[in-house]
């Protein structure tokens, strides 16, 4: 039996009495970019947080590289070393400079040598175009710049997969493209990614697979051409119609 890189099998998550994720299954191959779309409250963010162990699941299991990451014997800190995450609200550490933000986790978690870490951090800041801001504090950067630093901080851990949770949702419209350019660049370099987004045009361009989430489960999945071009199910059609209507305004 061939197994995928990430296998999510019938996971459930409840908050109080409410099922936020209801027996959701999904698989992701290495170097794939999988996009989660769907109305708010459909479970996109919760799914990403479960993958990162920031939420515990109530049923089902998640396997990464064939190894289960959701049973009780798992060291979640070890899991998170290999699964990077970027948040909607950037969550940079405001008491540290940009460079220190990127260097912190490799230094204390991976315990790499200082020279090596600084070299990597410098290279990554150059890659996101913010080397000149290395000594600045996050408060002094624009939202787009902060989010680019947050991406650099996540990939400084050299993760096997990157989770992006609506990373452009809090940005002013003119700052969205500078962040998406970096995601595009990462995808081109073969980074495995799962992203929740409302940027449909971007999703269509960059995704290997698009999943429409509804009521805590994958309602429909397929290639971008299938989902955006010829959605089969009525809820998907309806959702995409509302989005494109809003776009036309």
């Amino acid at each position, binding site marked *: 039996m061939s197994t995928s890189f990430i296998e999510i099998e019938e996971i459930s998550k409840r908050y109080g009495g409410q099922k936020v994720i209801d027996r959701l299954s999904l698989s992701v191959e290495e170097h794939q970019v999988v996009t989660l779309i769907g109305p708010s409250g459909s479970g996109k963010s919760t799914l990403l947080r479960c993958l990162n162990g920031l939420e515990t699941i109530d049923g089902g299991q998640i396997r990464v590289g064939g190894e289960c990451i959701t049973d009780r014997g798992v060291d979640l800190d070890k899991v998170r070393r290999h699964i*990077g995450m970027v948040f909607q*609200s950037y969550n940079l*550490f*405001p008491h540290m400079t940009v460079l220190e933000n990127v260097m912190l986790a490799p230094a204390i*978690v991976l315990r790499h040598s200082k020279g090596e870490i600084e070299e990597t951090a410098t290279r990554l800041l150059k890659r996101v175009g913010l080397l000149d801001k290395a000594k600045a*504090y996050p408060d*002094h950067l624009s939202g787009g710049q902060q989010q680019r630093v947050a991406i650099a901080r996540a990939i400084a*851990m050299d993760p096997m997969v990157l989770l992006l949770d609506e990373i452009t949702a809090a940005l002013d419209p003119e700052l969205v493209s500078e962040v998406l350019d970096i995601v595009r660049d990462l995808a081109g370099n073969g980074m495995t990614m799962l992203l929740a987004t409302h940027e449909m045009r971007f999703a269509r361009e960059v995704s290997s697979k698009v999943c429409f989430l509804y009521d805590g489960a994958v309602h429909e999945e397929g290639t971008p051409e299938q989902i955006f071009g010829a959605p089969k199910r009525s809820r998907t059609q309806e959702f995409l119609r509302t989005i494109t209507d809003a776009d036309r305004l």
Partner: protein
Amino acid sequence: MNEGVRLDFSIRGGVPVLLLSAAFLFALVGAVGCWATLLEIGYWLRDAWPDGATWACAALFVPGIAAAALFWPCLRASGECLSSRRARLSGQRVRAREKLADVRMNCRVAIGYSVSVILVVLLVQFFLLNDRAVAKTFLDFPLIIKTFPLILSAFWLNVKLFVASGIVCLIFGLVLAIAEIAPGPAGKPLRMLATAYVDIFRAIPAILVLFLVAFGIPLTGVPVLSDVPQMVLMVIALSITVSAYMAEIYRAGILSVQWSQAAAARSLGMTYLQSLRYVVVPQGVRNIIPPLLNSLIALQKDTALVTVVGAIDAFNQSMIIAGNVYNLSAVTTVAILFIVVSIPQTRLVERMMQRDRMRRVRA
């Protein structure tokens, strides 16, 4: 549509006669009170210090002339009343009401300054009461100068106590706060223990803890424990109480850091303790520097409580002197010493915080 409606946004009333009279009255009371007090001080100086009295009395003219300045805003207000009237008569409505606004402003300034002067005058009069009895009891300058070396060397004990227990409290308070928020079922007993500690020692008066620890423990006769020097016991006793207060401050600081910061730290693979150490605590502490400093100053003053266990600190020393000469001026010296050490600390921390803000905002 609005025809016939005439808008008038002027403040109601014409020349504020009542306010203007009040301003003159307050200035008069302030100035006269000030001059009377200065005169009394002059007589006192002539008796107490005949050689230097001429120069000292000459110096008294400076506040005397300053007191006359209380009338200045009143006079300006009067002038502005006249120019307001002129403007009104020549049809400049806006200029007239602007001048009236200046009148009100100047009257309020006069009253504000006069009230402050009157309060200070009352305080000085209190010291001059009963043929300067109060001043003699609290401010006998020759006695203050004579006993100063003795008080200062006793104050060294307060400083040592303060520095030692300050360091202990800053560390132990943080440990307590972290125990109070220890996560999970394994942390539950720790949480309960720390919370009980904080509740109990915030309830017991510091003076009681000090007495029980620094006086009681040597009485027990337990081999090692009762041989601990009194100095160490006093530091422990003070730290027990103040660290309970500091724990609450630290806890508030840690809880003020947004949960998303911890999430970001954990998502990078940091352990719970690493996320506290590098991300949550450094940010939390920044938010609570002012209340922490308040606690430290309170601790500094609490060092005077060691008097109850017989240690000769500055306060105890000053009371011994007070008992011998039947005069409290040495106690005043202690008060001044406490003021002198605490004010620079306040300023220092304010500067530190300002620098931190500047550094973060700088490009």
